Protein backbone atom coordinates (compact mmCIF):
# COMPACT_ATOMS: atom_id res chain seq x y z
CA UNK A 1 0.00 0.00 0.00
CA UNK A 2 2.75 2.42 1.03
CA UNK A 3 4.89 1.34 -1.92
CA UNK A 4 1.96 1.77 -4.27
CA UNK A 5 1.35 5.29 -2.97
CA UNK A 6 5.04 6.03 -3.35
CA UNK A 7 5.08 4.73 -6.91
CA UNK A 8 2.19 6.94 -7.99
CA UNK A 9 3.66 9.91 -6.19
CA UNK A 10 7.06 9.36 -7.79
CA UNK A 11 5.45 9.00 -11.18
CA UNK A 12 3.68 12.33 -10.67
CA UNK A 13 6.85 14.04 -9.46
CA UNK A 14 8.84 12.63 -12.36
CA UNK A 15 6.38 14.15 -14.83
CA UNK A 16 6.74 17.57 -13.21
CA UNK A 17 10.38 17.85 -14.20
CA UNK A 18 9.45 17.49 -17.85
CA UNK A 19 10.57 20.55 -19.80
CA UNK A 20 12.31 21.89 -16.70
CA UNK A 21 16.05 22.60 -16.64
CA UNK A 22 16.82 19.32 -14.88
CA UNK A 23 17.32 17.40 -18.13
CA UNK A 24 19.73 19.88 -19.80
CA UNK A 25 21.50 20.28 -16.46
CA UNK A 26 22.02 16.52 -16.06
CA UNK A 27 23.07 16.16 -19.69
CA UNK A 28 25.39 19.18 -19.53
CA UNK A 29 27.00 17.93 -16.33
CA UNK A 30 27.44 14.44 -17.73
CA UNK A 31 28.95 15.49 -21.03
CA UNK A 32 31.03 18.48 -19.89
CA UNK A 33 34.26 16.75 -18.82
CA UNK A 34 34.16 14.00 -21.50
CA UNK A 35 33.68 16.71 -24.13
CA UNK A 36 36.71 18.63 -22.86
CA UNK A 37 38.78 15.44 -22.85
CA UNK A 38 37.64 14.68 -26.38
CA UNK A 39 38.47 18.18 -27.63
CA UNK A 40 41.85 18.04 -25.90
CA UNK A 41 42.75 15.02 -28.04
CA UNK A 42 42.92 17.31 -31.05
CA UNK A 43 45.88 19.15 -29.49
CA UNK A 44 48.08 16.05 -29.33
CA UNK A 45 46.98 13.88 -32.19
CA UNK A 46 50.49 12.45 -32.64
CA UNK A 47 50.45 10.99 -29.15
CA UNK A 48 47.12 9.28 -29.63
CA UNK A 49 48.19 6.02 -31.35
CA UNK A 50 50.42 5.00 -28.45
CA UNK A 51 47.94 6.26 -25.87
CA UNK A 52 45.18 4.16 -27.38
CA UNK A 53 47.30 1.03 -27.22
CA UNK A 54 48.12 1.50 -23.54
CA UNK A 55 47.14 -1.61 -21.51
CA UNK A 56 45.03 0.43 -19.08
CA UNK A 57 43.64 3.02 -21.51
CA UNK A 58 40.08 3.00 -20.14
CA UNK A 59 41.18 3.15 -16.52
CA UNK A 60 43.31 6.18 -17.34
CA UNK A 61 40.49 7.93 -19.12
CA UNK A 62 38.04 7.12 -16.34
CA UNK A 63 40.47 8.36 -13.67
CA UNK A 64 41.10 11.59 -15.53
CA UNK A 65 37.41 12.31 -15.97
CA UNK A 66 36.27 11.35 -12.47
CA UNK A 67 38.71 13.77 -10.82
CA UNK A 68 36.68 16.84 -11.86
CA UNK A 69 33.45 14.90 -11.56
CA UNK A 70 33.98 13.79 -7.96
CA UNK A 71 35.37 17.07 -6.70
CA UNK A 72 33.32 19.59 -8.58
CA UNK A 73 30.80 18.69 -11.28
CA UNK A 74 28.74 16.15 -9.38
CA UNK A 75 28.37 18.23 -6.17
CA UNK A 76 27.47 21.31 -8.25
CA UNK A 77 24.95 19.38 -10.34
CA UNK A 78 23.33 17.98 -7.19
CA UNK A 79 23.01 21.48 -5.70
CA UNK A 80 21.29 22.71 -8.86
CA UNK A 81 19.06 19.66 -9.31
CA UNK A 82 17.84 19.71 -5.69
CA UNK A 83 17.03 23.41 -5.93
CA UNK A 84 15.27 22.97 -9.26
CA UNK A 85 13.07 20.17 -7.95
CA UNK A 86 11.91 22.20 -4.94
CA UNK A 87 11.55 25.33 -7.05
CA UNK A 88 9.02 23.57 -9.30
CA UNK A 89 6.58 23.88 -6.39
CA UNK A 90 7.67 27.30 -5.16
CA UNK A 91 7.70 28.98 -8.57
CA UNK A 92 4.30 27.62 -9.51
CA UNK A 93 2.83 28.33 -6.08
CA UNK A 94 1.88 24.67 -6.01
CA UNK A 95 2.85 23.48 -2.52
CA UNK A 96 -0.66 24.15 -1.29
CA UNK A 97 -2.18 22.07 -4.08
CA UNK A 98 0.29 19.26 -3.47
CA UNK A 99 -0.39 19.26 0.27
CA UNK A 100 -4.13 19.19 -0.36
CA UNK A 101 -3.81 15.81 -2.10
CA UNK A 102 -4.40 12.52 -0.27
CA UNK A 103 -0.72 11.78 0.15
CA UNK A 104 1.17 11.53 3.40
CA UNK A 105 3.97 14.02 3.93
CA UNK A 106 6.40 11.10 4.04
CA UNK A 107 5.26 9.99 0.57
CA UNK A 108 5.66 13.47 -0.90
CA UNK A 109 9.06 13.91 0.74
CA UNK A 110 10.32 10.50 -0.38
CA UNK A 111 9.00 10.87 -3.92
CA UNK A 112 10.79 14.18 -4.47
CA UNK A 113 13.98 12.82 -2.95
CA UNK A 114 13.72 9.78 -5.21
CA UNK A 115 13.43 12.04 -8.27
CA UNK A 116 16.68 13.77 -7.29
CA UNK A 117 18.40 10.43 -6.69
CA UNK A 118 17.25 9.04 -10.03
CA UNK A 119 18.52 12.17 -11.74
CA UNK A 120 21.90 11.71 -10.04
CA UNK A 121 22.05 8.10 -11.19
CA UNK A 122 20.97 9.18 -14.67
CA UNK A 123 23.72 11.79 -14.69
CA UNK A 124 26.37 9.21 -13.76
CA UNK A 125 25.10 6.75 -16.37
CA UNK A 126 25.20 9.45 -19.04
CA UNK A 127 28.65 10.45 -17.84
CA UNK A 128 29.86 6.90 -18.43
CA UNK A 129 28.28 6.90 -21.85
CA UNK A 130 29.87 10.24 -22.67
CA UNK A 131 33.20 8.92 -21.44
CA UNK A 132 32.92 5.92 -23.73
CA UNK A 133 32.19 8.24 -26.67
CA UNK A 134 35.11 10.48 -25.72
CA UNK A 135 37.31 7.40 -25.73
CA UNK A 136 36.08 5.80 -28.92
CA UNK A 137 35.42 8.80 -31.18
CA UNK A 138 39.08 9.75 -31.82
CA UNK A 139 39.66 6.20 -33.03
CA UNK A 140 36.81 6.62 -35.49
CA UNK A 141 37.87 10.10 -36.60
CA UNK A 142 41.63 9.73 -36.98
CA UNK A 143 42.76 7.03 -39.38
CA UNK A 144 46.06 6.43 -37.63
CA UNK A 145 44.43 5.89 -34.25
CA UNK A 146 43.27 2.36 -33.59
CA UNK A 147 40.48 1.49 -31.21
CA UNK A 148 41.67 1.03 -27.61
CA UNK A 149 43.38 -2.31 -27.22
CA UNK A 150 42.37 -2.90 -23.61
CA UNK A 151 38.88 -4.09 -22.71
CA UNK A 152 36.54 -1.84 -20.77
CA UNK A 153 36.48 -2.99 -17.12
CA UNK A 154 32.69 -2.70 -16.80
CA UNK A 155 32.38 -4.34 -13.39
CA UNK A 156 35.08 -2.16 -11.86
CA UNK A 157 33.58 1.01 -13.30
CA UNK A 158 30.09 0.04 -12.12
CA UNK A 159 31.39 -0.60 -8.59
CA UNK A 160 33.25 2.68 -8.48
CA UNK A 161 30.33 4.61 -9.98
CA UNK A 162 28.09 3.19 -7.30
CA UNK A 163 30.64 4.09 -4.62
CA UNK A 164 30.78 7.70 -5.83
CA UNK A 165 26.98 7.88 -5.92
CA UNK A 166 26.87 6.73 -2.29
CA UNK A 167 29.64 9.23 -1.46
CA UNK A 168 27.54 12.16 -2.66
CA UNK A 169 24.32 11.09 -0.90
CA UNK A 170 24.92 13.49 2.02
CA UNK A 171 25.10 16.35 -0.48
CA UNK A 172 21.77 15.20 -1.93
CA UNK A 173 20.19 15.07 1.53
CA UNK A 174 21.50 18.42 2.72
CA UNK A 175 20.77 20.27 -0.52
CA UNK A 176 17.28 18.78 -0.56
CA UNK A 177 16.72 19.88 3.03
CA UNK A 178 17.91 23.41 2.19
CA UNK A 179 15.87 23.57 -1.01
CA UNK A 180 12.69 22.53 0.79
CA UNK A 181 13.24 25.14 3.48
CA UNK A 182 13.96 28.04 1.15
CA UNK A 183 11.67 29.82 -1.27
CA UNK A 184 14.78 31.23 -2.86
CA UNK A 185 16.59 29.38 -5.62
CA UNK A 186 19.88 31.04 -4.79
CA UNK A 187 20.06 30.59 -0.99
CA UNK A 188 20.48 26.77 -0.98
CA UNK A 189 23.05 27.11 -3.76
CA UNK A 190 24.97 29.72 -1.77
CA UNK A 191 25.05 27.58 1.36
CA UNK A 192 25.94 24.49 -0.68
CA UNK A 193 28.75 26.34 -2.44
CA UNK A 194 30.12 27.56 0.87
CA UNK A 195 30.14 24.02 2.27
CA UNK A 196 31.67 22.66 -0.90
CA UNK A 197 34.45 25.29 -0.86
CA UNK A 198 35.01 24.44 2.80
CA UNK A 199 35.30 20.74 2.01
CA UNK A 200 37.77 21.35 -0.83
CA UNK A 201 39.74 23.93 1.12
CA UNK A 202 40.17 21.60 4.08
CA UNK A 203 40.95 18.50 2.05
CA UNK A 204 44.28 18.07 3.88
CA UNK A 205 42.70 18.51 7.29
CA UNK A 206 42.55 15.21 9.18
CA UNK A 207 38.93 15.83 10.18
CA UNK A 208 37.83 16.76 6.69
CA UNK A 209 35.49 13.76 6.72
CA UNK A 210 33.26 15.69 9.14
CA UNK A 211 32.12 17.86 6.22
CA UNK A 212 29.38 15.95 4.40
CA UNK A 213 30.47 17.34 1.02
CA UNK A 214 33.93 15.78 1.17
CA UNK A 215 33.33 12.04 0.79
CA UNK A 216 33.57 11.77 -2.99
CA UNK A 217 36.82 13.73 -2.95
CA UNK A 218 38.29 11.65 -0.12
CA UNK A 219 37.20 8.46 -1.86
CA UNK A 220 38.81 9.59 -5.11
CA UNK A 221 42.10 10.44 -3.42
CA UNK A 222 42.20 7.24 -1.39
CA UNK A 223 41.12 4.84 -4.11
CA UNK A 224 42.59 6.27 -7.25
CA UNK A 225 45.72 7.87 -5.81
CA UNK A 226 46.15 5.51 -2.86
CA UNK A 227 46.28 8.51 -0.50
CA UNK A 228 46.62 7.31 3.09
CA UNK A 229 43.95 8.92 5.25
CA UNK A 230 42.79 7.86 8.68
CA UNK A 231 39.02 7.59 8.72
CA UNK A 232 36.58 6.19 11.29
CA UNK A 233 35.02 4.06 8.53
CA UNK A 234 35.10 3.89 4.76
CA UNK A 235 33.57 6.82 2.94
CA UNK A 236 30.47 4.94 1.80
CA UNK A 237 29.60 3.93 5.35
CA UNK A 238 30.11 7.47 6.63
CA UNK A 239 28.20 8.92 3.69
CA UNK A 240 25.36 6.44 4.23
CA UNK A 241 25.05 7.29 7.92
CA UNK A 242 25.28 10.99 7.15
CA UNK A 243 22.61 10.66 4.46
CA UNK A 244 20.21 8.87 6.78
CA UNK A 245 20.76 11.38 9.57
CA UNK A 246 20.32 14.46 7.35
CA UNK A 247 17.35 12.94 5.52
CA UNK A 248 15.63 12.16 8.82
CA UNK A 249 16.31 15.68 10.05
CA UNK A 250 15.12 17.09 6.74
CA UNK A 251 11.88 15.17 6.95
CA UNK A 252 11.24 16.26 10.54
CA UNK A 253 11.76 19.89 9.53
CA UNK A 254 9.55 19.47 6.47
CA UNK A 255 6.75 17.70 8.32
CA UNK A 256 6.79 20.06 11.28
CA UNK A 257 6.10 23.17 9.24
CA UNK A 258 2.87 24.70 10.50
CA UNK A 259 2.19 26.40 7.19
CA UNK A 260 2.05 23.94 4.29
CA UNK A 261 1.21 26.30 1.47
Amino acid at each position, binding site marked *: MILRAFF*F*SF*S*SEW*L*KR*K*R*SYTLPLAAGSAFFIPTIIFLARFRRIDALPSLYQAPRFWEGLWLQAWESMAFMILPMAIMLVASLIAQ*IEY*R*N*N*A*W*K*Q*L*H*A*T*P*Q*SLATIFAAKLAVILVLVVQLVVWFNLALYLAGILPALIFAKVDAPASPIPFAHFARRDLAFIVDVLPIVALQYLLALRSKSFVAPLGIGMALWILSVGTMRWKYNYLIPYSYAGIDYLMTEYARKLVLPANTQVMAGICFLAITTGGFVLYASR*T*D*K*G
Partner: protein
Amino acid sequence: MQAIATIGLSHKFSAEAVLDDVNLAVPAGSIYGFLGPNGAGKTTTLRLVLGLLRVQHGTIEVLGRSLDRHRLEILSRVGSSIESPSLYGHLTAVENLEVWRRVFRCPPRRIGEVLSHVGLAGTGSKRADQFSLGMKQRLAIAVALLHEPALLILDEPANGLDPHGILEMRALLTALNHEHGITVLVSSHILSEIQKLVTHVGVIHRGTLRFQGTLAALMTRQEQSAATHLHTSENLRAVKIAAQHGMEGRLAGGKVILRALDEQESGRLTTALATSGVAVYEIVTVRRDLENVFLDLIGEA
Protein backbone atom coordinates in the same frame (compact mmCIF):
# COMPACT_ATOMS: atom_id res chain seq x y z
CA MET B 1 -25.50 16.57 7.40
CA GLN B 2 -22.82 19.22 7.16
CA ALA B 3 -20.17 18.91 4.46
CA ILE B 4 -17.97 21.19 6.53
CA ALA B 5 -18.42 21.95 10.21
CA THR B 6 -15.93 23.94 12.21
CA ILE B 7 -16.42 24.44 15.91
CA GLY B 8 -14.72 27.27 17.75
CA LEU B 9 -12.09 27.70 15.08
CA SER B 10 -9.58 30.36 16.12
CA HIS B 11 -6.20 31.09 14.63
CA LYS B 12 -3.35 33.50 15.19
CA PHE B 13 -0.41 34.47 13.04
CA SER B 14 2.24 35.52 15.56
CA ALA B 15 0.26 37.62 18.00
CA GLU B 16 -2.35 38.71 15.48
CA ALA B 17 -5.69 36.92 15.76
CA VAL B 18 -7.00 36.22 12.26
CA LEU B 19 -9.89 33.92 13.18
CA ASP B 20 -11.98 34.07 16.30
CA ASP B 21 -14.47 31.34 17.18
CA VAL B 22 -15.58 30.61 13.62
CA ASN B 23 -18.37 28.03 13.48
CA LEU B 24 -18.73 27.33 9.80
CA ALA B 25 -21.61 25.07 8.78
CA VAL B 26 -21.70 24.17 5.10
CA PRO B 27 -24.72 21.92 4.44
CA ALA B 28 -24.12 18.90 2.21
CA GLY B 29 -25.50 19.49 -1.26
CA SER B 30 -25.40 23.26 -0.95
CA ILE B 31 -23.54 25.92 -2.86
CA TYR B 32 -22.09 27.95 -0.04
CA GLY B 33 -20.82 31.45 -0.67
CA PHE B 34 -18.11 32.41 1.80
CA LEU B 35 -18.03 36.16 1.72
CA GLY B 36 -15.80 38.74 3.24
CA PRO B 37 -13.52 41.59 2.29
CA ASN B 38 -9.85 40.94 1.58
CA GLY B 39 -8.05 39.96 4.77
CA ALA B 40 -11.27 38.93 6.53
CA GLY B 41 -10.04 35.39 7.19
CA LYS B 42 -11.61 33.47 4.29
CA THR B 43 -8.44 31.95 2.92
CA THR B 44 -7.10 31.16 6.39
CA THR B 45 -10.35 29.31 7.16
CA LEU B 46 -10.15 27.35 3.90
CA ARG B 47 -6.47 26.51 4.42
CA LEU B 48 -7.34 25.19 7.87
CA VAL B 49 -10.19 23.13 6.43
CA LEU B 50 -7.77 21.58 3.92
CA GLY B 51 -5.12 20.88 6.53
CA LEU B 52 -2.69 23.37 5.01
CA LEU B 53 -2.42 25.14 8.33
CA ARG B 54 -2.14 23.42 11.67
CA VAL B 55 -5.26 23.93 13.77
CA GLN B 56 -4.44 25.94 16.88
CA HIS B 57 -7.88 25.99 18.45
CA GLY B 58 -11.18 24.39 17.56
CA THR B 59 -12.20 21.34 15.59
CA ILE B 60 -12.93 20.67 11.94
CA GLU B 61 -15.14 18.02 10.43
CA VAL B 62 -15.30 17.52 6.68
CA LEU B 63 -17.78 15.14 5.07
CA GLY B 64 -18.68 13.85 8.51
CA ARG B 65 -15.12 12.89 9.45
CA SER B 66 -12.65 14.54 11.77
CA LEU B 67 -9.95 16.29 9.75
CA ASP B 68 -7.47 15.63 12.50
CA ARG B 69 -7.88 11.86 12.28
CA HIS B 70 -8.96 11.24 8.68
CA ARG B 71 -7.07 13.89 6.68
CA LEU B 72 -6.03 11.70 3.76
CA GLU B 73 -9.41 10.03 3.44
CA ILE B 74 -11.09 13.44 3.43
CA LEU B 75 -8.66 14.93 0.92
CA SER B 76 -9.35 12.05 -1.47
CA ARG B 77 -12.94 13.32 -1.65
CA VAL B 78 -12.24 17.05 -1.76
CA GLY B 79 -11.25 19.14 -4.76
CA SER B 80 -9.73 22.52 -4.10
CA SER B 81 -8.18 25.62 -5.52
CA ILE B 82 -6.79 28.06 -2.98
CA GLU B 83 -5.76 31.62 -3.79
CA SER B 84 -4.08 31.90 -7.18
CA PRO B 85 -4.21 28.81 -9.43
CA SER B 86 -1.52 26.23 -8.63
CA LEU B 87 -0.42 25.15 -12.07
CA TYR B 88 2.89 23.99 -13.44
CA GLY B 89 3.61 26.71 -15.97
CA HIS B 90 6.07 24.63 -17.99
CA LEU B 91 3.49 21.89 -18.59
CA THR B 92 0.46 21.80 -20.87
CA ALA B 93 -3.10 21.54 -19.56
CA VAL B 94 -3.13 17.79 -20.19
CA GLU B 95 0.24 17.34 -18.49
CA ASN B 96 -0.88 19.38 -15.50
CA LEU B 97 -3.90 17.15 -15.13
CA GLU B 98 -1.78 14.04 -15.64
CA VAL B 99 0.40 15.10 -12.69
CA TRP B 100 -2.65 15.09 -10.42
CA ARG B 101 -4.32 12.11 -12.09
CA ARG B 102 -1.40 9.94 -11.07
CA VAL B 103 -1.72 11.11 -7.47
CA PHE B 104 -5.48 10.63 -7.32
CA ARG B 105 -5.22 7.43 -9.37
CA CYS B 106 -8.27 8.18 -11.48
CA PRO B 107 -8.79 6.82 -14.99
CA PRO B 108 -7.09 8.64 -17.91
CA ARG B 109 -10.47 9.44 -19.52
CA ARG B 110 -11.11 11.94 -16.71
CA ILE B 111 -8.55 14.32 -18.21
CA GLY B 112 -10.57 14.73 -21.40
CA GLU B 113 -13.81 14.95 -19.46
CA VAL B 114 -12.74 17.73 -17.12
CA LEU B 115 -11.04 19.66 -19.91
CA SER B 116 -14.32 19.57 -21.85
CA HIS B 117 -16.20 20.61 -18.72
CA VAL B 118 -14.14 23.77 -18.34
CA GLY B 119 -13.82 24.49 -22.05
CA LEU B 120 -10.09 23.89 -22.37
CA ALA B 121 -10.17 20.82 -24.58
CA GLY B 122 -8.44 22.53 -27.48
CA THR B 123 -5.38 23.99 -25.78
CA GLY B 124 -3.06 21.30 -27.20
CA SER B 125 0.63 21.95 -26.68
CA LYS B 126 0.17 25.42 -25.22
CA ARG B 127 1.95 25.64 -21.88
CA ALA B 128 0.02 26.76 -18.81
CA ASP B 129 2.21 29.84 -18.34
CA GLN B 130 0.95 31.04 -21.72
CA PHE B 131 -2.67 30.85 -20.55
CA SER B 132 -4.72 33.92 -19.66
CA LEU B 133 -5.68 34.24 -15.99
CA GLY B 134 -9.20 33.13 -16.88
CA MET B 135 -7.86 29.98 -18.56
CA LYS B 136 -5.67 29.32 -15.55
CA GLN B 137 -8.68 29.61 -13.26
CA ARG B 138 -10.59 27.16 -15.41
CA LEU B 139 -7.69 24.72 -15.47
CA ALA B 140 -7.43 25.00 -11.68
CA ILE B 141 -11.12 24.07 -11.47
CA ALA B 142 -10.45 21.16 -13.84
CA VAL B 143 -7.70 19.96 -11.48
CA ALA B 144 -10.10 20.23 -8.55
CA LEU B 145 -12.74 18.21 -10.42
CA LEU B 146 -10.41 15.53 -11.72
CA HIS B 147 -11.11 12.89 -9.06
CA GLU B 148 -14.89 13.53 -8.94
CA PRO B 149 -14.88 15.03 -5.45
CA ALA B 150 -17.89 15.15 -3.16
CA LEU B 151 -16.85 18.61 -1.99
CA LEU B 152 -15.36 21.40 -4.03
CA ILE B 153 -13.58 24.28 -2.27
CA LEU B 154 -12.76 27.21 -4.52
CA ASP B 155 -11.10 30.32 -3.17
CA GLU B 156 -11.99 33.40 -5.23
CA PRO B 157 -12.52 31.38 -8.43
CA ALA B 158 -13.89 34.37 -10.30
CA ASN B 159 -10.66 36.35 -9.95
CA GLY B 160 -9.41 37.26 -13.39
CA LEU B 161 -12.52 36.08 -15.18
CA ASP B 162 -14.35 38.41 -17.56
CA PRO B 163 -18.15 38.72 -17.22
CA HIS B 164 -18.65 35.95 -19.77
CA GLY B 165 -16.20 33.74 -17.88
CA ILE B 166 -18.04 34.41 -14.62
CA LEU B 167 -21.31 33.35 -16.26
CA GLU B 168 -19.67 30.17 -17.56
CA MET B 169 -18.16 29.37 -14.18
CA ARG B 170 -21.50 29.95 -12.50
CA ALA B 171 -23.21 27.60 -14.97
CA LEU B 172 -20.50 24.98 -14.47
CA LEU B 173 -20.70 25.05 -10.68
CA THR B 174 -24.49 25.02 -10.73
CA ALA B 175 -24.44 21.99 -13.05
CA LEU B 176 -21.93 20.18 -10.85
CA ASN B 177 -24.11 20.83 -7.84
CA HIS B 178 -27.42 19.94 -9.46
CA GLU B 179 -26.34 17.05 -11.68
CA HIS B 180 -23.60 15.47 -9.60
CA GLY B 181 -24.65 16.49 -6.11
CA ILE B 182 -21.27 18.06 -5.40
CA THR B 183 -21.24 20.43 -2.45
CA VAL B 184 -19.53 23.63 -3.51
CA LEU B 185 -17.91 26.22 -1.30
CA VAL B 186 -16.83 29.37 -3.11
CA SER B 187 -15.23 32.32 -1.44
CA SER B 188 -15.46 35.82 -2.75
CA HIS B 189 -15.18 39.40 -1.59
CA ILE B 190 -17.89 40.52 -4.01
CA LEU B 191 -21.45 39.49 -3.15
CA SER B 192 -22.89 40.25 -6.57
CA GLU B 193 -20.37 37.83 -8.09
CA ILE B 194 -21.88 34.84 -6.33
CA GLN B 195 -25.36 36.07 -5.43
CA LYS B 196 -26.90 34.25 -8.38
CA LEU B 197 -24.99 31.07 -7.65
CA VAL B 198 -25.23 30.26 -3.97
CA THR B 199 -27.90 28.66 -1.83
CA HIS B 200 -26.19 29.48 1.46
CA VAL B 201 -24.05 32.34 2.61
CA GLY B 202 -21.48 32.90 5.32
CA VAL B 203 -20.16 36.40 5.89
CA ILE B 204 -16.85 36.77 7.67
CA HIS B 205 -15.16 39.98 8.72
CA ARG B 206 -12.09 40.57 10.85
CA GLY B 207 -11.98 36.87 11.66
CA THR B 208 -15.52 36.52 12.97
CA LEU B 209 -18.53 35.06 11.24
CA ARG B 210 -21.09 37.88 11.00
CA PHE B 211 -23.85 35.97 9.23
CA GLN B 212 -24.51 32.40 8.24
CA GLY B 213 -27.64 30.99 6.70
CA THR B 214 -29.55 30.52 3.51
CA LEU B 215 -29.53 33.13 0.78
CA ALA B 216 -33.25 33.49 1.46
CA ALA B 217 -32.50 34.42 5.07
CA LEU B 218 -30.07 37.05 3.88
CA MET B 219 -32.73 38.40 1.53
CA THR B 220 -35.23 38.52 4.39
CA ARG B 221 -32.70 40.61 6.24
CA GLN B 222 -32.56 42.79 3.14
CA GLU B 223 -36.33 43.18 3.22
CA GLN B 224 -36.19 44.03 6.89
CA SER B 225 -33.64 46.70 6.27
CA ALA B 226 -35.94 48.50 3.77
CA ALA B 227 -37.63 51.67 5.08
CA THR B 228 -40.14 54.31 4.06
CA HIS B 229 -38.91 57.89 4.34
CA LEU B 230 -41.51 60.59 4.88
CA HIS B 231 -40.94 64.33 4.60
CA THR B 232 -43.84 66.44 5.90
CA SER B 233 -44.67 69.94 7.13
CA GLU B 234 -44.89 68.65 10.74
CA ASN B 235 -42.74 65.58 11.22
CA LEU B 236 -43.42 65.19 14.96
CA ARG B 237 -47.17 65.09 14.43
CA ALA B 238 -46.66 62.78 11.49
CA VAL B 239 -44.88 60.25 13.78
CA LYS B 240 -47.84 60.34 16.18
CA ILE B 241 -50.40 59.96 13.41
CA ALA B 242 -48.46 57.07 11.90
CA ALA B 243 -48.31 55.37 15.30
CA GLN B 244 -52.10 55.72 15.62
CA HIS B 245 -52.29 53.68 12.38
CA GLY B 246 -49.95 50.98 13.65
CA MET B 247 -46.87 52.32 11.86
CA GLU B 248 -44.15 53.00 14.39
CA GLY B 249 -41.65 55.58 13.20
CA ARG B 250 -38.79 57.78 14.30
CA LEU B 251 -37.26 61.06 13.33
CA ALA B 252 -33.91 61.06 11.58
CA GLY B 253 -32.23 63.61 9.35
CA GLY B 254 -35.30 65.83 9.15
CA LYS B 255 -37.45 62.95 8.00
CA VAL B 256 -39.80 60.39 9.45
CA ILE B 257 -38.42 56.91 9.05
CA LEU B 258 -40.95 54.08 9.03
CA ARG B 259 -40.69 50.40 8.25
CA ALA B 260 -41.14 49.74 4.54
CA LEU B 261 -44.81 50.42 3.75
CA ASP B 262 -46.72 48.77 0.98
CA GLU B 263 -48.95 50.76 -1.40
CA GLN B 264 -52.14 50.42 0.69
CA GLU B 265 -50.38 51.50 3.87
CA SER B 266 -48.78 54.45 2.10
CA GLY B 267 -52.21 55.50 0.80
CA ARG B 268 -53.83 55.21 4.23
CA LEU B 269 -51.07 57.18 5.92
CA THR B 270 -50.97 60.04 3.40
CA THR B 271 -54.77 60.36 3.61
CA ALA B 272 -54.63 60.43 7.41
CA LEU B 273 -51.88 63.03 7.35
CA ALA B 274 -53.71 65.20 4.83
CA THR B 275 -56.94 64.96 6.86
CA SER B 276 -55.01 66.11 9.94
CA GLY B 277 -53.64 69.09 8.04
CA VAL B 278 -50.08 67.74 7.71
CA ALA B 279 -48.70 68.40 4.24
CA VAL B 280 -46.77 65.49 2.72
CA TYR B 281 -43.83 66.73 0.62
CA GLU B 282 -42.25 63.41 -0.14
CA ILE B 283 -42.84 59.73 0.57
CA VAL B 284 -40.37 57.20 -0.68
CA THR B 285 -39.59 53.60 0.19
CA VAL B 286 -35.86 52.86 0.16
CA ARG B 287 -34.97 49.23 -0.51
CA ARG B 288 -31.38 48.34 0.16
CA ASP B 289 -29.65 45.91 -2.14
CA LEU B 290 -27.84 42.81 -0.89
CA GLU B 291 -24.51 44.52 -1.31
CA ASN B 292 -25.54 47.12 1.25
CA VAL B 293 -26.77 44.40 3.59
CA PHE B 294 -23.37 42.75 3.18
CA LEU B 295 -21.64 46.04 3.94
CA ASP B 296 -23.91 46.45 6.97
CA LEU B 297 -22.85 43.02 8.19
CA ILE B 298 -19.20 43.88 7.91
CA GLY B 299 -19.86 47.30 9.42
CA GLU B 300 -18.77 49.34 6.43
CA ALA B 301 -22.08 50.64 5.09
